[in-house]
């Protein structure tokens, strides 16, 4: 008899047999620390990629020694089990070692964004003060190069300020008494993605993180051969969980560079994949366009992406067009189509809720639906690809084990498959509440479900995320997703891709919201043809969506405000627009 399962690929390059050989992490370890301690000492853990000439690698053994040194330093400074330790250090091994050093003590570390030249100092100060105050930390560890002018804005309260010391210099072998870490002790606090001032702390236990990693490593068929590439900041869940804690627990090698170095030289990502034969990466949607567009084509033949088995698009909403662009560009470098995957993730669930390409599927599903019914009835009626007036959606994959989702209407009714509503989730790794913020917790968790604030629908076991609830525009009773308008505006040749924002502005004459678009032109000179471009955009939007735009504001490059995650920040851009055009700000 023919055995059809033998050698069958279950997830991007792994056979079923290989997938089954994965190691169950929760049953094996009590805590994250246990997982780190059980790694082979000589296995590479973190490579910090500085540039072509400078890379530093710490093995698991070396990393443990560095973490232990940091634990001793923290202990000497009065840190005890349960104390919060805030870390404000640049991306790199010392930051990671200090994080684990705090965990070794049974303390609860939290990483905050390190200031950089791209972030307005005033915005940074505001965020820092709010977040540090809420954590009531025992110690705040800052990098030795932390700018003095920002120091006054670290809210210390009773906390002690420590300048980070070089790991590995002193202390080394000092024995740490068993700190009393148990599965139910808090392991760390991570912050939800968002504009800096409004980040919310999510405290997670060792057991919750391990349960999550068990699911994630199983669906992704992760084993010790995997090598993770990352440019993601460690103060967001994607960087912290997928690219630091997962490799630490599953004993993987991770090669990381700083987000700033990557954004300046996006081609370094391709070089690192080539040099280190990386197999996995988690990347926000814009990366899939940014890299091919900002990397000189003449260098493409030098890259080898054949080792990549999962490049996971993990920012909502996932755009098939972005992934296609990346694949078309780099297929000649050996990039496999099945490597392009998607996930829906959030700090509140430790990390991922869904993952594509699992349970025998090849990748994220793309469906086309009737645009009119989508807007008017919030219902997904599938139509053939490319039908006139249709809209397309790319799924974020299937639910991880022990994760559940329901789609809820504005009136609180649980919707059937195919209807669009707010995504609510439950899982065995869901957070218990925002740290020290019962007010926010009460709004977010209701009847055991976490209301994500994201809009989406669930169809044929796949979750599709279509946007943020609060972004929804309601025009004459019709729901309009600003992302749809933005995509149409962005597709105009004169507009910088991804730099368009659609906003709802109340119109007292009509008693409903009007659509206002602000978009950046590719080049300043194009503003001379503003009338013509505006006309074309207007007719494009009407043709595809059947709604008219009230005003279009074309702006020079770099005008739109971006969030910490590099996405166009809708609310801040709105404020900026209203400030420049006060005639738009009508009382509602």
């Amino acid at each position: 008899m023919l055995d059809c399962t033998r050698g069958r690929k279950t997830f991007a390059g792994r056979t079923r047999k290989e997938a089954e050989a994965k190691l169950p992490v929760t049953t094996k370890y009590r805590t994250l620390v246990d997982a780190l301690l059980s790694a082979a000492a000589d296995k590479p853990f973190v490579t910090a990629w500085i540039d072509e000439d400078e890379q530093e690698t710490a093995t698991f053994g070396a990393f443990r020694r560095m973490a232990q040194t940091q634990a001793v330093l923290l202990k000497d400074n009065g840190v005890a089990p349960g104390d919060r330790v805030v870390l404000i250090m640049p991306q790199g091994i010392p930051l990671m070692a200090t994080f684990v050093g705090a965990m070794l003590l049974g303390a609860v570390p939290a990483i905050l964004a390190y200031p950089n030249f791209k972030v307005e100092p005033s915005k940074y100060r505001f965020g820092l003060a709010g977040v540090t105050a809420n954590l009531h930390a025992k110690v705040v560890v800052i990098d030795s190069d932390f700018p003095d002018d920002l120091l006054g804005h670290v809210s210390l309260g009773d906390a002690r300020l420590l300048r980070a010391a070089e790991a590995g210099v002193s202390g080394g072998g000092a024995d740490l008494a068993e700190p009393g870490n148990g599965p139910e002790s808090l392991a760390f606090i991570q912050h939800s993605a968002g504009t800096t001032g409004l980040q919310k702390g999510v405290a997670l236990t060792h057991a919750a993180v391990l349960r999550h990693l068990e699911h994630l490593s199983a669906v992704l068929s992760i084993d010790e051969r995997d090598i993770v590439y990352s440019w993601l900041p460690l103060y967001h869940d994607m960087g912290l969980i997928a690219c630091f804690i997962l490799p630490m627990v599953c004993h993987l090698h991770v090669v990381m560079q700083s987000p700033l170095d990557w954004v300046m030289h996006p081609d370094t990502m391709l070089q690192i994949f080539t040099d280190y034969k990386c197999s996995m990466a988690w990347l926000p949607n814009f990366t899939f366009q940014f890299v091919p567009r900002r990397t000189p084509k003449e260098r493409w033949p030098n890259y080898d992406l054949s080792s990549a088995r999962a490049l996971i698009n993990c920012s909502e909403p996932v755009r098939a067009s972005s992934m296609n662009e990346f694949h078309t560009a780099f297929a000649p470098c050996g990039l496999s189509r099945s490597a392009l995957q998607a996930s829906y993730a959030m700090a509140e669930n430790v990390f991922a809720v869904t993952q594509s390409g699992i349970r025998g599927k090849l990748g994220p599903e793309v469906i086309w639906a009737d645009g009119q019914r989508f807007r008017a009835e919030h219902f997904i009626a599938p139509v053939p690809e490319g039908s006139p007036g249709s809209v397309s959606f790319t799924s974020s994959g299937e639910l991880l084990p022990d994760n559940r989702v329901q789609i809820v209407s504005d009136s609180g009714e649980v919707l059937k498959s195919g209807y669009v509503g707010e995504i609510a989730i439950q899982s065995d790794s869901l957070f218990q509440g925002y740290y020290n913020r019962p007010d926010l917790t009460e709004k977010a968790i209701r009847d055991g479900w976490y209301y994500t604030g994201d809009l989406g629908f669930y169809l044929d076991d796949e979750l599709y995320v279509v946007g943020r609830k609060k972004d929804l525009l309601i025009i004459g009773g019709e729901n309009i997703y600003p992302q749809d308008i933005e995509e149409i505006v962005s597709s105009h040749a004169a507009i910088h891709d991804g730099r368009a924002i659609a906003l709802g502005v109340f119109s007292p004459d009509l008693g409903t919201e009007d659509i206002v678009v602000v978009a950046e032109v590719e080049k300043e000179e194009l503003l001379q043809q503003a009338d013509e471009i505006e006309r074309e955009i207007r007719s494009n939007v009407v043709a595809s969506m059947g709604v008219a735009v009230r005003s279009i504001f074309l702006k020079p490059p770099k005008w739109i405000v971006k969030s910490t995650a590099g996405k166009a920040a809708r609310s801040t851009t709105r404020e900026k627009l209203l400030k420049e055009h006060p005639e738009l700000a009508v009382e509602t």
Partner: protein
Amino acid sequence: MIDQVVKLIRKPGLQIDENTSLVSSGLIDSMALVDLLIKLEDITHLRIPAGKVQPKDMNTVALMFATAQRVGKPRK
């Protein structure tokens, strides 16, 4: 470099010199600093580790060059 800065500032007729304050005066968008830093690398033939640069290091054209000299590494 001054030409580059003028291009990025987009205020016709504005005169700047190497000591004109750009960041603290709000003349230059912090996002444009990425492009300036890339330009600075080209002009100085140095690799500038972006993580070691703060907004105040980019406030004037003179400071930009001083920063490049301070943190930049020769390129191979």
